[in-house]
């Protein structure tokens, strides 16, 4: 057999066939126009002979067939006219059978048969029966299929259906059914026969051709579904069993898969629900190579959609015990097909799960059952490598999350965490992320330590490194996003009851501390702040009430806090730790725990001295220290003095002079606290400000020495403003003279040529002078104070 030339030849044959067909059609038309029945029959028969060819593939044969079909319509019309002109239909019926070759003869017979039925000269059922049997004369698969397809097409509007004009006492729906079923059966046999024709090496070609023809066979099922008289009962008792019988008995893989799918798509969901058992019982009888899982998945999908379409249909589902039947069927299929790949089994369970969530949303036990069955299939296989399977598992596990929108429900599923064991690390993380996003999206609050424990078990892929060798695929951006999600999640773990909240905090702490140094900077801060919130809630609670060691009290929490922040030293994250220590110090201050506050300050100071060496970081850190210290009221004189002394010391030792200056004058506030009278030490305030002035001067001299011109007077203006601040607050050590002196100093400097012009400084000085004027304009005691200035 020629292969490469084959296609070219086919086109040639097709062209030749069409030419022949058209030529004969031309003569046939002439005969029709002249009412020449004899010639009409002769040329039509010749025309139809083109369809006797064996040389065309189904695809090309179809082209030829369609042209013949169109021509036959004209012929049919002519036949109808003939019967009106006196020629009896029976006569015609006989006449056409004189055609020489059987194929043209049968096409003509079917065409007349159509007229015959329409004329009602004979019962429809008799004609139909005759035709369907006569077509047995063609056993060649392609030719036979097209012939029977023609028969189906010309008769489909003439079946003795309920309410049709062809229904009679003798003609019933059953006859229509018989006809269609028989045609279907014969067509399927022809179709299956094709599989075994020809040499083995052309199997692929044959299967391709078979696929091109499948709709011809399937059309019969469609016709069946359109028959009005076929109600549920008839479907269940006659149609389905007969069709399934043929499907099973033909033992052909291609046919079985296509036809089962056809049945599912063509007949209403209602019917499927009521005949579920019959349908499912056919499955184990099918050829092993048939892709049952896809078929079952599609069936479940349809039924799921049906359930979702209206609440009224749901009782039907319960009534027929759909879930149980489907569940069993799946179990059987999986058991029978030992070699089914994992992805297949998971897909099946996934479809069943979707079904269950639609039909029985309240039955968590069903969900758990499905998960359990699926996980059972996975056991013994270790971690999955197949990415399709893992993707499908993620879909499976995400379904309950999406349906219930509530992680607490999902946590109740005992088989859910077992799944995570079988996922590779990448997929574990994906799943963990899905879970976290679900919680964040629904703003679910997780309120007991047990649930937190269960949750963290589930998401452990993100909490810690499951596998030591992860470095190859580390993407920093992804990692940061992941860990930020975990941090957000920690905010959702909350309970009003302090005891339970403490348990939650301990659980979280336990998990995050084993998370490794990369994760701590993300996970520690949220835990710290959650704990500080709890401390605040506990404030005011009398300590003696909860004397029990294990109960929640601020002291215990501060111990926890200390331990947690300490863990940051392993990263190391000194700047963050310093900030957190200061936060805790403030909280301890508010809880009246002086030693604890002092301890936190000590830790912060140690970090400052030993770990924070970057100048910019030091400046920020010192302002945070000063700002925090300034707010502390808990310290006794000694402690306060030690801490203050250290702070001013650090300030004076900053690298850049301007930074030193600013930090030192900030320290002045440490000696002037509004709340308690005894914390207002005017002298030491002035001392600080003077020190700041000295530093500012030194800075000027340095600028002079190194650059030839003095730097800006900005620092002096800042210090002046501080002078005014304390002056206004009533610090008696700040004299009018000192203020006046400063103003003059600044004015002189600004007018001096050696000073670098600085518009910002000019503006600042201007606004400061304006401020002084405003104060004078205020009147009253304030104005009196300010009056003598300038």
């Amino acid at each position: 057999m020629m292969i490469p030339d084959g296609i070219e030849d086919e086109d040639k044959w097709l062209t030749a066939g069409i030419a022949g067909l058209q030529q004969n059609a031309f003569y046939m038309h002439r005969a029709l126009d002249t009412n020449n029945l004899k010639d009409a029959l002769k040329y039509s028969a010749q025309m139809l002979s083109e369809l006797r060819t064996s040389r065309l593939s189904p695809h090309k044969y179809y082209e030829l067939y369609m042209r013949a079909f169109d021509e036959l319509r004209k012929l049919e019309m002519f036949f109808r006219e003939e019967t009106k002109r006196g020629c009896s239909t029976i006569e015609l019926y006989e006449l056409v059978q004189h055609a020489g070759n059987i194929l043209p003869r049968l096409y003509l017979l079917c065409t007349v048969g159509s007229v015959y039925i329409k004329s009602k000269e004979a019962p429809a059922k008799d004609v139909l029966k005759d035709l369907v049997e006569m077509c047995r004369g063609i056993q060649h698969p392609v030719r036979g299929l097209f012939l029977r397809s023609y028969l189906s097409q010309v008769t489909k509007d003439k079946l003795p259906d309920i309410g049709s004009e062809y229904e009679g006492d003798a003609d019933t729906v059953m006859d229509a059914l018989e006809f269609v079923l028989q045609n279907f059966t014969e067509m399927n046999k022809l179709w299956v026969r094709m599989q075994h024709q020809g040499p083995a090496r052309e199997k692929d070609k044959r299967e391709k051709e078979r696929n091109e023809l499948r709709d011809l066979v399937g059309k019969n099922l469609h016709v069946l579904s359109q028959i009005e008289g076929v109600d549920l009962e008839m479907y269940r008792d006659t149609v389905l069993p007969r069709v399934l019988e043929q499907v099973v008995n033909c033992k052909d893989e291609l046919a079985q898969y296509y036809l089962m799918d056809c049945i599912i798509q063509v007949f209403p969901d209602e019917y499927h629900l009521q005949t579920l058992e019959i349908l499912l019982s056919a499955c184990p009888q099918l050829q092993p190579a048939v892709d049952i899982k896809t078929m079952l998945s599609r069936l479940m999908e349809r039924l799921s959609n049906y359930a979702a379409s209206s609440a009224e249909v749901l009782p039907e589902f319960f009534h027929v015990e759909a879930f149980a039947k489907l569940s069993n069927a799946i179990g059987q299929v999986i058991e029978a097909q030992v070699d089914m790949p994992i992805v297949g089994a998971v897909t099946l369970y996934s479809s069943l799960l979707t079904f269950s969530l639609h039909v029985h949303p309240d039955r968590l036990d069903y969900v758990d059952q499905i998960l359990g069955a699926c996980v059972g299939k996975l056991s013994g296989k270790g971690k999955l490598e197949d990415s399709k399977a893992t993707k499908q598992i993620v879909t499976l596990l995400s379904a309950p999350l999406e349906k219930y929108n509530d992680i607490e429900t999902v946590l109740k599923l005992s088989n859910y965490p077992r799944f995570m064991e079988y996922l590779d690390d990448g997929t574990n993380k994906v799943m963990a992320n899905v879970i976290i996003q679900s919680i964040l999206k629904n703003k679910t609050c997780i309120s007991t330590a047990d649930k937190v424990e269960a949750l963290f078990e589930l998401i452990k892929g993100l909490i810690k490194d499951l596998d030591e060798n992860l470095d190859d695929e580390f993407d920093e951006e992804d990692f940061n996003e992941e860990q930020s999600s975990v941090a957000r999640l920690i905010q959702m773990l909350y309970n009003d009851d302090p005891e339970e909240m403490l348990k939650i905090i301990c659980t979280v702490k336990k998990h995050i501390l084993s998370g490794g140094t990369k994760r701590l900077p993300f996970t520690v801060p949220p835990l710290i702040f959650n704990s500080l919130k709890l401390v605040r809630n506990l404030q005011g609670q009398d300590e003696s009430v909860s004397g029990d060691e294990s109960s929640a009290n601020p002291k215990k929490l501060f111990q926890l806090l200390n331990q947690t922040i300490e863990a940051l030293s392993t990263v190391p994250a000194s700047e963050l730790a310093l900030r957190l220590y200061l936060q805790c110090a403030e909280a301890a201050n508010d809880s009246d725990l002086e030693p604890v506050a002092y301890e936190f300050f000590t830790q912060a100071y140690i970090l400052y001295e030993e770990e924070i060496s970057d100048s910019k970081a030091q400046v920020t850190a010192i302002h945070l220290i000063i700002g925090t210290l300034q707010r502390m009221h808990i310290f006794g004189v000694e402690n306060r003095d030690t801490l203050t002394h250290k702070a001013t010391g650090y300030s004076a030792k900053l690298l850049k002079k301007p930074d030193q200056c600013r930090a030192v004058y900030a320290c002045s506030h440490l000696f002037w606290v509004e709340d308690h009278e005894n914390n207002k030490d005017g002298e030491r305030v002035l001392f600080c400000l003077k020190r700041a002035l000295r530093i500012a001067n030194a800075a000027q001299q340095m600028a002079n020495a190194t650059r030839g011109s003095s730097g800006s007077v900005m620092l002096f203006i800042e210090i002046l403003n501080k002078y005014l601040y304390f002056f206004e607050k009533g610090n008696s050590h700040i004299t009018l003279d000192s203020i006046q002196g400063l103003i003059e100093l600044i004015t002189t400097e600004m007018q001096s040529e050696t000073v670098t012009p600085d518009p910002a400084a000019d503006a600042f000085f201007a606004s400061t002078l304006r401020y002084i004027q405003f104060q004078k304009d205020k009147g009253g005691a304030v104005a009196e104070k300010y009056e003598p200035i300038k």
Partner: protein
Amino acid sequence: MVLVLAIGDLHIPHRAPDLPAKFKSMLVPGKIQHIICTGNLCIKEVHDYLKSLCPSLHITRGEYDEDARYPETKTLTIGQFKLGLCHGHQVVPWGDLDSLAMLQRQLDVDILVSGHTHQFKAYKHEAGVVINPGSATGAYSSITYDVNPSFVLMDIDSLRVVVYVYELIDGEVKVDKIDFKKTATATTHSAH
């Protein structure tokens, strides 16, 4: 009429998971001309979110911000007003209005926006206005107890600015407004 959103101290994800839903639904892209942010976002995701609301985004550095490149202070002019922006942890004592006024003089601005205390404030004095938009997420603060989520929207129209403050109290968004007028040399406060 220029709308300026003043917002800050979100502390996502350290102290809060997200903006309150009611705020999120109000903050829609395309309605605001400028965003000034006091700092402490703290992560890039929040920066991107704010940027999506309005491309003209000005941020100063808070002490917990992941991005260390934000400036300590920033000034900008909108209409007839000069605005200054600073997180506020640098100004000691924290939250002290007189010290903030000093910063305002130093930056030479009519309106100073700063945060850190997580408490909404709008304070006028002869030389201008000091505004603290509070914490948009109601994040924990060592300085303020019972923080309600809040942000500020300023409507600047030549010499007049109307300050709208949005606060989420017990699940409901409450709005308040304050008027400020600027004359050529000084600002005056008009009661409303």
